[in-house]
């Protein structure tokens, strides 16, 4: 990958999360702290996944095995951060300026921690690829195609967005004791992760199209969960 490709891929994967960070997170220190805390929890889940993968020696070669458990660990840690954030609500009330908004609207905490999860997982999945790729070459000499980098970036973006939406749905479902929504989040995470296994056959369209379909579907769910509706959408567009 060349420098041009490097910037192309970075913009594609981290442009949208960067925009979300700038406009919705950066102005409030408490949100930044929560974002970082969430990323830390995702990292812990990564550590646990890798330890588990490391310990179960006979299945080391099986990507699917590590992947399934990694998804489960991530969801467990999403639950843990939910628990902690709910416990910390009172404390947060004291230190934040616009406590009314942050505490009253529970979706904001969900959104911020989801974005934290997403950004760190996106960074970890793409950084290895991008770091190796500074140089004059592109993929395709021994294996892969030249579309490898751009599809990797697109997949990373997809996971960043999905983590954000999943957290919104997941937190809300836990608040309301809606077990079906929790199961839906876990199973869609599993489904999406398993879909990426198809990448080894280098039919990237077979992965990317379903992935983005799921992103759009999840986004609509999260939108509804957060209090949006078609009517409110129409109203917001009209106001312009």
């Amino acid at each position, binding site marked *: 990958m060349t420098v041009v490709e490097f910037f192309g891929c970075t913009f594609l994967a981290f442009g949208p999360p960067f925009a979300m960070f700038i406009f919705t997170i950066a102005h409030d220190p408490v949100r930044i702290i929560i974002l970082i805390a969430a990323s830390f929890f995702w990292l812990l889940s990564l550590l646990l996944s890798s330890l588990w993968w490391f310990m179960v020696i006979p299945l080391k070669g099986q990507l699917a095995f590590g992947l399934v458990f990694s998804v489960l660990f991530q969801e467990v840690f999403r639950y843990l951060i939910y628990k902690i954030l709910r416990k910390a609500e009172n404390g947060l009330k004291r230190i934040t300026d616009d406590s009314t908004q942050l505490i*009253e609207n529970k979706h904001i905490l969900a959104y911020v921690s989801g974005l934290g999860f997403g950004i760190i997982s996106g960074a970890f999945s793409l950084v290895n690829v991008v770091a190796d790729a500074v140089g004059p070459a592109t*993929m395709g000499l021994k294996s892969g195609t030249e579309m490898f980098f751009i599809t990797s970036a697109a997949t990373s973006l997809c996971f960043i967005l999905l983590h954000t939406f999943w957290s919104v749905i997941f937190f809300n479902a836990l608040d309301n004791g809606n077990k079906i929504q929790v199961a839906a989040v876990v199973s869609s995470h599993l489904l999406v992760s398993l879909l990426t296994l198809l990448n080894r056959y280098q039919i990237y369209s077979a992965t990317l199209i379903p992935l983005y379909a799921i992103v759009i579907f999840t986004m609509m769910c999260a939108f509804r969960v957060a209090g949006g509706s078609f009517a409110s959408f129409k109203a917001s567009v009209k106001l312009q």
Partner: protein
Amino acid sequence: MYIKSSILFFLYIEINLILLSNGERTKDQMYEHFDGRMSCFRRLNATHQIGCSSKRDGSTGIIHYVEEQEDLNFILKTGSAGDYIPIIPTVLLKPETIKSLKNSGKISGIVIYNDNTKIPKHYSHELKCPNPRSNIEKTCDVPWNKHGTGILHDDVPFPIYYVNNEEDLKKIKDCFQKFNNFSYETQYTRSLCSIELDAFMHATTDTPTCIRRSNSKTNLNPVKFCDPLGGENVWASLFPIENVTAKNDAVHANNKKYIILATHLDTTSMVHAAYPGAVNPITGIVTLLATADLLKRMVKEEVQYGDNILFMLFSGETYDYIGSQRMVYDMEKDEFPMKIDPDIKNPLPLIHLDDISIFVELDQLSKNKQLFANPTDSSNNSRMKNFMQKLQNYSKSFATFMYGSQLPPSSLQSFVKGNSNLSGLVLANYRSNYLNNYYNSIYDNYTNVDYQYYNTTEDNTSEIPFDSIQYYTANISEMLARSLYEEVINKRYEGDEKPRLELIDELYNCYLLNPDCKVHQAIQRKKLGETPYNSYSFYVGVTVVPNLLTYAIGLTLGWLTGDIVATNKTCIGDPHIPVYQYFNMSRSLDNLNTTECFRTTMNFTEALSPAFILPDYNWKSNKYSSWSESTWKDLTVRMFLKPSAAHERFTIAIGSVTFIMSLILVYFVKSRSHILFVTPENCSPTSC
């Protein structure tokens, strides 16, 4: 305590994770790395730079595999996708090709490969007359190396790399066929197989410039841009040089004369780490070692002798006679065999140029029916005539001995420059044109001397045929040894010592095929085959890196001319008797495991051109060799797929559009969020 141990535990786990995870990285999929050592590099002399250099970060070009001249012309005419690096067979590396590639402006490097079906009839990139600046007058009226193209002495503006590996060549060819070798008009629209040659040379212009820059006082962190070429000369005497008792004697009272039997130790070629050097210099070295071995056995019983014999092997002769110039300089400066050291009670007597009675140099000695003695101008005395007559008599059985007309480029040139009255001759298999068609090139390998390894023992050498190089070398060394014996002992040799064929067979094996041969085991230099290329080769190298091959050859000479001593248990020399050096070495080729203490007269002297020692040397004078070698960071070659410009534009466009669109969208959602999302006051989450 608990925290500490838990941190340690985690560290341990993490390190294991890093070490044990399968390290297949994306990078490994993208690049095919080749061993880049066989690249052309830059050398400098007092006025010029020669050789090649890549751009600072490596020169990249699209691969074009060339089999015939037409393929090369085709790509020069139609290539449209940027810089190319043609992969050309060795036959095509000619001055015309280099010139046309230079002028085309489309070429950023060359890769050469050996096509076994088309071995060139002659292949030498050395000059027609080697070392033109350092020879005595009129030497260069003769085109000694008549096929020489002189590319070695050109300043090539792009890197050259030699693929000497069938496997690597196949990879390059396959990649070219898969990605590049179709629809040349639309090449610029697709990703192309490319190669990057990184051989950036730090030095430029010439040696004085480079030395001035390296010594720059303004630079707090001095960087060395070049190293002088050089190494070590090897010498040994047949009879121990008798040390004198008083210091004054060392300087004046030595009326001993010396016959010198010399040859040179080095060759060169277009690319680094490929210096086979079979005819030049290996035939000369093996002949010298075999002669030394035979002479030593012949004189075993002799006590009375006239002149002593010195065996000398010079380093760096390919680059303006570095070794012999230094030897002459040392002799003139009263520093040979060693400087007078006030602490040494019994110094060696000094040897001067006047003390040389006859200088016999062995040059290229591959098989030929004729043998030529090319004498110096002042060899017209009775002693030389007599000596040459002896050589002629002893050569009758295997070659016609003839007189050459002129002194060829050789180490003897330096000695004649120092003392024009010197009588000497160069013994070679040519008169005025080298028979060796591959002089100083990658094709001067074991097939060029028709060598085959027979792995014989002392008792059974019958397998070696009479027309082999081993027999030829044995005959020459017998001729030389018998003539020299008569010259120093003053009587005909009547004993029955013969040259040892198994030793000659083994020596050729050492230098041509297998560095881990029996001789190197015998002199206790094991595992030479595993040493890195640049410290074990027939290229002179730089003085800062010791050349292990020079040491191995020196020890071999010491082994062959040394005596086994039983008394010296520790096998360490006495610093007050510098004439002897002691080494533990195997008893014989057939008895490698029994080591004995050998007392030898072999020594090394520095072979660094006086130009680099004299503080106010005038570089313009051309008096001494001024060759230096540029430093470099690394020599690497890698092949990869270079993305097309169209693909790059596509990627950056998608990335930028996504980025800008998301900025707008997020800003829109943020500013309308109070309308988009119904706040919990109006709607509890459960009802949404």
